[in-house]
């Protein structure tokens, strides 16, 4: 398929729109999950949706998108609630509670699946689509449902923005203000279910975790404000979704879900590297600069001190023979702070002698002054 022709393709349009909606909802809700230390909640809820999908199928008698979504939402929400209950009401930690809910609900789903199929073998049929997503089978009606769910989630978030913000960053203070903190926390947690339900079709169970985490982590590198982070996360989600969908359509036989996830991961890596202020590249540059500055100061200081201690002439101080020092010496010479002269090598004395130039002396004096300056 050529570039332009795919824009008119019905399936491509559906996949792109669905992926865009997925990006928006998982970016926004994922920001809260990541900030609250519940990054893997998306993973747990997406696995927990399996029994709901099966129940929806059983109740509707066939593969009905509406009932499947409702089923998935119900069991996903139940799993989130159970996770919260296990964490609050026993000494289990979050990770154990998440892992338990994830695996138990999924196991129930597997049991239901085999019940539906009337066999003991779960490795058949619709499970493939559930695990890996089946983006290519998205109908236009599915896209509208995804859009609707996304809109509802955004509306709830907009209405409760201030409360959500406060509960995320300072729950105790929110409690003293009389806010129903537990209710809001439960709401924020269970809302991830909405994102998961949208994502099941597109990327499948396993990869849903990354859709919740990746846009939020990428956005966090660029913004320190919640509002900014949420908006950037949504944008990252949309971009990943659309690139994944496009790559999948252009490359024949490549699965959509993995490509979306890899696009998002690439954006995360780039953000980690070059985000202003936080970027790792900048940190490496800063460290290198500091190290060079320290080395320069050291060399000038040592040369200056030996010059003070003895007369100008003979002995060049012993400087480490390493490659770093040699490079530094040449660099300082290039900058006009040192001069060097060669003489015949004699045992115990290096062939090259280094001396400070007048400007080198001036710089060294400045450095010494800072050392001796009263603190």
């Amino acid at each position: 398929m050529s570039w332009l022709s795919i824009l008119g393709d019905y399936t491509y349009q559906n996949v792109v729109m669905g992926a865009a909606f997925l990006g928006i909802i998982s970016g926004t809700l994922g920001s809260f999950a990541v900030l609250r230390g519940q990054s893997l909640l998306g993973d747990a809820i997406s696995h927990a949706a399996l029994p709901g999908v099966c129940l929806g199928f059983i109740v509707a008698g066939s593969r009905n998108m509406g009932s499947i979504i409702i089923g998935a939402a119900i069991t996903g929400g139940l799993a989130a609630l159970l996770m919260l209950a296990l964490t609050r009401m026993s000494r289990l930690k979050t990770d154990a509670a998440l892992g338990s809910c994830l695996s138990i609900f999924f196991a129930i789903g597997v049991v239901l699946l085999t019940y539906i199929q009337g066999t003991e073998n779960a490795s058949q049929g619709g499970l493939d689509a559930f695990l890996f997503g089946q983006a290519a089978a998205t109908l236009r009606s599915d896209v509208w449902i995804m859009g609707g769910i996304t809109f509802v989630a955004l509306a709830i978030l907009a209405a409760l923005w201030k409360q959500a913000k406060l509960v995320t960053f300072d729950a105790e203070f929110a409690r003293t203000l009389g806010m129903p903190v537990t209710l809001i926390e439960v709401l924020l947690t269970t809302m991830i279910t909405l994102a998961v339900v949208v994502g099941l079709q597109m990327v499948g169970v396993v990869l849903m975790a990354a859709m919740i985490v990746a846009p939020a982590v990428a956005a966090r590198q660029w913004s320190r404000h919640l509002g900014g982070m949420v908006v950037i996360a949504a944008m990252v989600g949309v971009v990943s979704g659309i690139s994944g969908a496009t790559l999948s359509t252009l490359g024949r036989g490549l699965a959509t879900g993995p490509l979306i996830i890899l696009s998002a991961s690439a954006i995360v890596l780039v953000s980690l590297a070059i985000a202003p202020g936080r970027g790792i590249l900048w940190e490496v540059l800063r460290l290198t600069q500091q190290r060079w500055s320290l080395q320069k100061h050291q060399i000038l200081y040592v040369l200056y001190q030996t010059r003070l201690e003895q007369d100008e002439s003979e002995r060049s101080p012993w400087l480490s023979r390493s490659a770093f020092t040699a490079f530094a010496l040449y660099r300082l010479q290039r900058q006009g702070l040192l001069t060097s002269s060669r003489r015949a090598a004699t045992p115990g004395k290096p062939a090259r002698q280094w001396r400070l130039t007048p400007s080198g002396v001036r710089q060294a004096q400045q450095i010494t002054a800072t050392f001796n300056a009263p603190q």
Partner: protein
Amino acid sequence: MLEAFFNNAELQIMLVGAMVGTASSLVGTFLVLRGNSMLSDAISHSIVFGIVVVWLLTHHQSGPVQLIGAALTGLLTVFLTELLASTRRMKQDAAIGLVFPALFSIGVLLLNVYANDVHIDTHTVLLGEIGFVWLDTVEILGYHVPQAVVSMTIMLTLNLIFVGAFFKELKLSTFDPALAKALGFAPGVLFYALLMLTSSTAVAAFDAVGAVLFIAFAIVPPAAAYLLTDRVWLMLALGALISTAASVSGYYIAVQWDVSIGGMMAVMTGVFLLLAFIAGPRYGIISQRLRRHRARGLATG
């Protein structure tokens, strides 16, 4: 008599289930205690990547080379996760949620590109089929032993030896890693060894119960045991006990209702967790309520 044992499909299935459960909960206990349970989730998903790579290199779908490949993949997963977390620009659970989906995605894409016409059964990898373990046998000393029993015996023995030999060091590294490091016990190395065993157990368990149900056996029995006792050795013992009970009960119920056996076994571990959560003698909800009630009674009366 041994021959009758190995020919009894029912017993073989329950045996494999119990072995998977025990081997998994041995390593899972320390993961739960460290707060790293989700690593078992991450490893069991990213192992798909390892399986595909090993298959592309060696064309073996199972066997020792896959076990080694799994151990390495587990190492890679945790290494990348720690690398990301060490940048201090995200928390550890976020790092987990980034690494394993990426590896899983690469694995699936490799499958798409290189192995589209070849049958690597991703279903079985993820779900296993314990009901068939008694079909795939190898001949040992004249007996037809299920392949799964052989690999699980190896893994169970390895895990038992590891936990037994390093019990004190594992305990210390789990509860006081700083002191362990100061005393020269290399908690980092111990942790990676634990994870390699976890990964290998996961691959060995795939045949039987698949990836996701392995997670159930690695996390839920230890979690239930954690709610029942404070002593690590007892946690290990209870984990094994609960796994075995879940295997046996899961099998019979699954046969009764004609549903997935592996799935039912995992569901039963959940039932035991729920029991421990509600009715555990020390930490269950009921006893918590009773204690509070009694304390209130003492305070007022």
